């Protein structure tokens, strides 16, 4: 059974990143030998919290006690030496090396003299570790020849290879089959028995109940509550995850939808399949779901940037063959990417150049750039969007997040397009600018544009959308009408019901 002693105790942890408060005075504690689940929406702060525990980030405020002592890990090594290991969602393995070499990377045991590596010892120790985990794998196998599940096990073995007391697992089961998950849970049980504590981040409710002892819920960087996993009521948990927020940021005037702007039929790409959605003039349709569900990939495929492997789609009623971004822009489509800085803007170029970047052909039909037109266009949108800058020659990289997004919007407005895909439109933007962006979305829709919005912020999705498609693990699992949309409903479909429900 889970011990009573506190292994990890964190009080008042606060962490700021430029533009956001990631963690706001969070308290968190883990007991010896327990599996403590961290639950919360995207952006709730789970990842940030565990990265602070593992030494990847430094905290701004608060105190941390580990194993009875006050600690202040300045880097990953120090946390590792203290006995804390983290298994990230993206595995950190060397594919061309053997299991043994991966387990002991950076800490290889040496033989006497000549700086020789004691590979035999590595093999022996690896075999022991693997056996301890109940795994039948030859430590001489190259990691690239293992399945994802097996690779994950190697990561677990790696984490156990030094004296570990606390193991953090971030979404370990997202690529595993039911049988593999059973195996993993068996291992976790064994770890518990040997007194190791585990912080487990997951969205899968049944797993949480099955493997967890306690569940801590975070929301918007704040600590909400800690519940007992076995007796927890799912609805209650979801309610705590989303909270009851009513804001006056939204002023959506719902319009009667016009003609079809987008229609996809069983669209399949590298990370999504059989997606069939549509958007009409005047509508704001949202793609909701967890990070990794495949929403951004759909957007990029629609824009012709990523390959499409199956299915078809129509823009303004015309079938799109051999899509490319240039073609899509010509057809009247716009994509405002999630990674604004690297994919949406030219940070080292002035505002003016950014704003005309997508409309070069439209503004200058004969290919000759007229500086006056460029300047006028830029000034027009600077005023219209209220971009806060002394002049349009300032480099975009110096603007705040909100203003940068406005520049991106300006870029697309100058192309006179009628179908917009906004991917995380208000990420990293303060409240004031958010309101302006929401107003803008509303205006665009009211003027006859169709908008496909990808967002992880529930409030946005709920208060702005005509309809919501919920995506989960690459597929659209539900379409919700405005009347059906609620935070609970979306989450219920976004969270996996258990194991893998596909195939």
């Amino acid at each position, binding site marked *: 059974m889970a011990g009573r002693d506190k292994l990890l105790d964190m009080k008042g942890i606060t962490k700021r990143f430029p533009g956001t408060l990631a963690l706001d005075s969070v308290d968190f504690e883990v007991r010896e030998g327990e599996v403590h689940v961290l639950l919360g929406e995207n952006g709730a702060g789970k990842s940030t919290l565990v990265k602070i525990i593992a030494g990847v980030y430094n905290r701004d405020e608060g105190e941390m006690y580990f194993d009875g002592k006050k600690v202040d890990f300045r880097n990953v090594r120090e946390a590792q030496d203290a006995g804390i290991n983290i298994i990230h969602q993206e595995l950190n393995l060397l594919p061309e090396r053997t299991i043994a*070499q991966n387990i002991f*990377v*950076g800490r290889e045991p040496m033989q006497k003299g*000549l700086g020789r*590596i004691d590979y035999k010892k590595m093999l022996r120790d690896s075999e022991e570790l693997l056996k301890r985990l109940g795994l039948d794998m030859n430590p001489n196998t190259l990691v690239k020849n293992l399945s994802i599940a097996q690779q994950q096990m190697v990561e677990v073995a790696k984490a156990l290879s030094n004296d570990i007391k606390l193991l953090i697992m971030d979404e370990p089961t997202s*690529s595993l*089959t039911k049988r593999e998950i059973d195996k993993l849970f068996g291992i976790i049980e064994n770890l518990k028995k040997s007194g190791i504590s585990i912080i487990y981040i997951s969205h899968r409710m049944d797993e949480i109940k099955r493997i967890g002892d306690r569940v801590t819920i975070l929301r918007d960087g704040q600590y909400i509550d800690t519940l007992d996993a076995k007796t927890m009521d799912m609805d209650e948990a979801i309610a705590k995850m989303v909270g009851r927020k009513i804001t006056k940021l939204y002023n959506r005037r719902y319009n009667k939808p016009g003609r079809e702007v987008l229609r996809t039929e069983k669209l399949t790409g590298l990370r999504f399949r059989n997606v069939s959605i549509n958007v009409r003039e005047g509508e704001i349709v949202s793609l909701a779901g967890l990070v990794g569900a495949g929403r951004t990939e759909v957007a990029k495929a629609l824009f012709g940037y990523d390959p499409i492997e199956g299915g078809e789609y129509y823009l303004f009623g015309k079938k799109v063959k051999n899509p490319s971004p240039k073609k899509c822009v010509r057809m009247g489509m716009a994509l405002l990417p999630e990674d604004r800085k690297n994919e949406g803007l030219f940070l080292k170029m002035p505002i003016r150049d950014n704003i005309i970047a997508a409309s070069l052909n439209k503004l200058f039909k004969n290919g000759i750039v007229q500086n006056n037109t460029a300047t006028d266009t830029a000034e027009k949108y600077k005023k219209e969007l209220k971009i806060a800058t002394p002049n349009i020659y300032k480099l975009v990289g110096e603007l705040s997040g909100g203003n940068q997004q406005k520049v991106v919007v300006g870029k697309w407005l100058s192309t006179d397009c009628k179908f917009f895909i906004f991917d995380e439109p208000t990420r990293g933007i303060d409240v004031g600018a958010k309101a302006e962006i929401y107003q803008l979305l509303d205006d665009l829709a009211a003027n006859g544009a169709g908008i496909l919005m990808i967002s992880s912020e529930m409030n946005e999705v709920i208060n702005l959308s005509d309809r919501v498609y919920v995506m989960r693990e690459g597929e659209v699992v539900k379409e919700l009408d405005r009347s059906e949309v609620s935070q609970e409903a979306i989450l219920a479909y976004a969270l996996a019901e258990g194991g893998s429900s*596909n195939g």
Partner: protein
Amino acid sequence: MGKKLEFLRGINIPGATYGVIVLLILFSLITNKFLTLANIFFIARSSSILLIASIGMTMVILVSQIDLSVGSVMSLSGVIAALCLQNGMGIPIAILLGIASGIVFGIINGIMVAVYKFDYWISTFATMGVGAGLALVFANGETIPIADEAFGWLGNGKLFGIYVIIYITIILVAIMMFVLGKTKFGYNIYSIGGSEQTALLSGIDVVKNRVYVYICSGLFASMAGLLLASMCNSASPIAGADYSFDAIAAVIIGGTSFDGGKGGLLGTVMGTLMLRILTSGLNLMGFSAIWQKAIIGVVIVAILVGDALNEKRKKKNDMRRTYAYEN
């Protein structure tokens, strides 16, 4: 995964080996002048120089970088040694200074690329230029003759019927294979090349190791340069000009990937042999030097293109979502 494969683990046969075998068979069939003892020795000797120079290059490419200055360092070290001998400074000093020049260049490259994080193409391109320039300057634009017989013995002498240079090469390759495969430094190289992020998170001092790698590159380049000068009994300031590219080609043909962390010296050995066998075979078939260069150039480019396409395909597959199936 039985015991049989476990045994083979240490002996990873690079794909280039088959290329070598095919070429050997092909050329011996096409021309009877190919499979003579004299020719085999010739191939072995000319491979030696390239191979030694490519040892360092292998290490650099393993950590996903490149060293364009290898050729210039070769020229420079030969010139420096020749000048020393000309001024009566004795072989030990000549060799020492020659090797020192390689190490110095390695340090400069390492600092620019690893510490200051300059682009490695540009940085090593610059040092390549400087090295070539210095070589020309020191040599006054002329080839410096080397009269010292003892020095010449290194490149031309025989021991028990086999050229000394071949022994040297075998020893160096064996040592470095050991280093790469069984020492911490070697492991670090593969770790950094495999995934710099993982290496960092595992506490490996990536910067320090990268500098060491560049130092090794300069070191082996200088050794190759010295042996080349010995073999030619003269030091030409442009002796090493082609070797940078040839070394890169030898390494990549041999299967060491730019991606990093994959491949090794055995592959480079095969890649070097392939290049030199190609040269010899084409030569014996009557192609002029220019034709040889052109053909080999095309072959190399073709392989590089094939490599690039392969990487694209792999990346695409990696991006794919795997839909788990019920077992």
